């Protein structure tokens, strides 16, 4: 069984390994500063239309949110930026964001990346770097 599974994984790795350039940082694969700004703008547009989670953002200053989120994405994707915003915990404390609402935001982010034609494997690498942040965001 182990042999079957591991040979499957190796095959998959060979198949997909050549799909993108490993030399580039994730920041560059996402289109750099412009790419991230487009994704975040798309995300803001999605949130504006969303009945489930819009209420969390009703009092948010959009321009400030945009700048900080682009910077934050830039830093976690190894881009040349500095994040000057508050910590994830400080921002979200008291908001009582649920598991379901968090996943809703992930869905909207995926939609925003789709609209920018970000390839599936690149999307996943950004998501993977957001995964550990969830515990600093929900139910606090």
């Amino acid at each position, binding site marked *: 069984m182990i042999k*079957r*599974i591991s040979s499957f994984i190796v095959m*998959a*790795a060979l198949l997909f390994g050549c799909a993108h350039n490993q030399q580039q940082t994730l920041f560059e694969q996402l289109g750099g500063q412009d790419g991230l700004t487009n994704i975040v703008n798309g995300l803001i547009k999605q949130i504006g239309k969303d009945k489930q989670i819009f209420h969390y953002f009703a009092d948010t200053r959009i321009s400030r949110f945009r700048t900080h989120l682009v910077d934050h994405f830039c830093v976690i994707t190894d881009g040349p930026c500095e994040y000057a915003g508050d910590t994830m915990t400080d921002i979200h404390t008291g908001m009582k964001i649920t*598991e*379901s609402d968090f*996943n*809703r935001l992930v869905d909207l982010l995926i939609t925003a990346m789709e609209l920018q034609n970000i390839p*599936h*494997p690149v999307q996943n690498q950004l998501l993977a770097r957001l995964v550990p942040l969830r515990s600093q965001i929900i139910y606090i």
Partner: protein
Amino acid sequence: MLLLSGWNSIIKIIKLAYLTILILFSSQLMAADGKLIATPGVSQVEGSAGGGLVPWAQLAGYASQDEVAANVFCSQAKVDDFRLRSCGAQLNLYDRVEFSLAHQSFRVDALDTDIEQRIFGAKARLYGDLVYSSWPMVSLGMQYKHLDDNDVAKALNAKDSSGTDWYLAASKLHVGAVAGYNLFWNITARYTDANELGLLGFGGPGENKEVQWEGSAAIFLSRELAVGVEYRQKPDNLNLDEDDWADIFVAWTPNKDISITAAWLDLGSIAGSDDQHGLYLSLTGYF
């Protein structure tokens, strides 16, 4: 006969309780989409959330810890000399407990007969989240199985016409792990004495329950499409060279309402008929 009617009334009570819960929670059921697409898995042949053959650690449906979800499923496996149909439903309460009911109908061409089995399952999430926790998600489950008619099981020297499997399952989705593609795996240890899922009864001459290992691995080619493999170790209590089972599957989840799974099965020898291969098709609807 008395036993059988007792069992039937238990099933009726469970069904009634199930319907009541469905109606009570129906307003919340409409909103059970708190998980990421395709992460609950599909329905395995004994009714639990899982792959096709193996129960996984995930609980059925899209309920988050604040939601309730219900699903219905139907599956068919057609191999050279046999056909198995399995249909049922699952209920997920707050992503903590899963209850499932399944009815299996096993067509044996050689005997021109159908063996029917009913399964009640329960699963509790002990730790973690498939995507977000650093360690794998772990669940403990049971499947109580009862044959409607144990003539075939008896003829093959099986000890009992009903039995309970216990299993511990660990699952994890590694986001972007394989060249940016999501990798899923699951390992299940099952304590069982079921012969061919229980369709040929439970236990055998001098045989006791033992642990069997089951595993799955899959790669998500997109949010909606996963391809993978499964393996399920099985006991040989009846000395009929009962084989382990394996499959290669494709699961398509176009949205959070439905999933369709197709698989190529290698079921080896069943009740003395060798080299049983064939197709598996399964449909789950999520509410």
